[in-house]
């Protein structure tokens, strides 16, 4: 359902205070060092535009390190969960990324608890040269989307919040996706990818890759994790889930020391396969939402899209 009352200043304020009453509010905040981070904003102010943050929304939905359980004084204790929260100023591409994570973690209890606790407010963004978003890529998650004039309800929860704020009539038109951003997206097929497994571009990119893992850390749809067990002096034992990264030397290692992906070239290829073609029930779903974070974060300017374009050119060579 779409709502169309002009979003006057007072309505935006109303929305913020209504969300802030029951929820911890988060928004992209531009720091003095030029880095945009998702931070709690207390009572505001409401951001005027959506902005990509260095670490995407996954930091709230799939925290870098979370305790899965704790064993203390003879009892198992489940992890403590964060309460209701709202994120204001989310880009459209990131709402797609959240939809993707929702599919991946559909059967994950702690993810689903956080999912139930969240409320996401999308806003228009200002695309830059790194942006390659694609409206047709996948559906959106989220609750409402607002620009200067209109509000769209994206979920029943969003509809209820807008009603409560007195915004009742339908908006016209589709969501304001940036246009012309997909021109540089190389439409590489799994067959083209597979046929080019020995293409020179892999060795070339691998010679530059520092294996720092920044691309995957900042990616809104990268979700690999590891499980770690730890003990404390008082006898407490805890199990944590922590982000893993396909560029790290032990990511592809299994018992006995066998490595599924020895060397940087194999790890780069794995990242492209996972990102562009997906695994398991999501095989065939490109999960690169085109936010450009990886391009910006890479210290040696490796760009999966450029590699894909080269692979298409080099196929069969």
């Amino acid at each position: 359902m779409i709502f169309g009352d002009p979003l006057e200043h007072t309505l935006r304020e109303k929305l913020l205070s209504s969300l802030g009453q029951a929820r911890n509010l988060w928004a992209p905040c531009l720091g003095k060092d030029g880095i945009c981070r998702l931070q709690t904003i207390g009572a505001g102010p409401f951001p005027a535009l959506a902005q990509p943050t260095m670490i995407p929304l996954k930091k709230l939905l799939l925290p870098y390190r979370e305790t899965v359980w704790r064993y203390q004084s003879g009892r198992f204790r489940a992890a403590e969960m964060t309460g209701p929260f709202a994120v204001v100023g989310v880009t459209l591409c990131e709402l797609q990324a959240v939809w993707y994570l929702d599919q991946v973690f559909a059967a994950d209890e702690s993810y689903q608890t956080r999912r139930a606790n969240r409320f996401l407010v999308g806003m228009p963004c200002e695309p830059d040269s790194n942006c390659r978003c694609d409206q047709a890529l996948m559906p959106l998650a989220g609750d409402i989307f607002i620009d200067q004039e209109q509000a769209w309800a994206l979920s029943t929860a969003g509809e209820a919040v807008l009603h409560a704020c007195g915004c009742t009539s339908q908006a016209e038109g589709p969501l304001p996706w940036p246009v012309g951003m997909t021109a540089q997206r190389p439409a590489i097929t799994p067959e083209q990818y597979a046929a080019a497994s020995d293409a020179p571009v892999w060795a070339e990119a691998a010679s530059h890759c520092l294996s720092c893992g920044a691309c995957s850390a900042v990616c809104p749809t990268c979700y690999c994790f590891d499980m770690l067990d730890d003990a404390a002096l008082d006898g407490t034992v805890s199990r944590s889930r922590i982000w893993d990264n396909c560029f790290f030397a032990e990511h592809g290692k299994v018992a006995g020391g066998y490595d599924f992906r020895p060397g940087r070239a194999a790890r780069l290829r794995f990242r492209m396969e996972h990102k562009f073609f997906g695994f398991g029930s999501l095989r065939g779903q490109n999960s690169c939402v085109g936010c450009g974070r990886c391009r910006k974060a890479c210290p040696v300017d490796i760009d999966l899209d450029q590699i894909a374009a080269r692979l298409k050119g080099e196929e069969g060579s």
Partner: protein
Amino acid sequence: MKFVPPIKLAWLRFTSCSGCQLTLLNNEDSLAELAHVVELHNFPLLSSACGNAEALDVALVEGSLTSPGEVERLLAIRRKSRLLVAVGACALTGGVNAMVKGERHKAMVSIYGKAGAEWDTFPPQPIHHFVKVDGQIPGCPPEPHELLQAIAAILHGGWPSHQVMPVCMECRINENRCLLEEDCAPCLGPITQAGCDALCPGLGVPCEGCRGVVPEANRDELYRLFITAGLSEQEIRHRLERFGAAL
């Protein structure tokens, strides 16, 4: 390996600054708890009394080795310890001590005078050059909680969990401004083992590499980046040698 608390633990210090011992003591909130599970037999920073236990459960060893006398002490402690853990950069790689270059005899005399000529020393060595090391806790110094975690894990018959990953990962997680990317700073984050929560880059100081090198580090590319950033070959070498990251 099973242990029944309190475990008999000794801290041995060789050529080092005692900073690693201080780091353990910086866990003020946990020291009382630690005293319940550990029977301390030697800890030079706390007491000059030397434990003379016939057998130890755990020996924590700090510092590099620089003299035959130190080697003898190390061997003796290895013989009577069930586990021997190397603590800190000096014990693991030789640390900053190992940067010393040039003719050793001349250096000894220039620093200590004539007496220096008499001392029997050799260039600083990591302890694994002499004895079997069961566990390693890196860093200059290690993070305070790492020492507690290691002792707690040993009590449970294990070793602390550990992710093999570079400092860059923790730096990105903390959403720090990238010193390598933004300032072309000679940051060793991409090749240095994490675990410090990217402490230095988080404070705007390029990583010095004190926690040692990650496996399969791409030194060639980092070298190229540093040359492009205007560093001389010698500057890069010095930077890498500070904590033994040079090949």
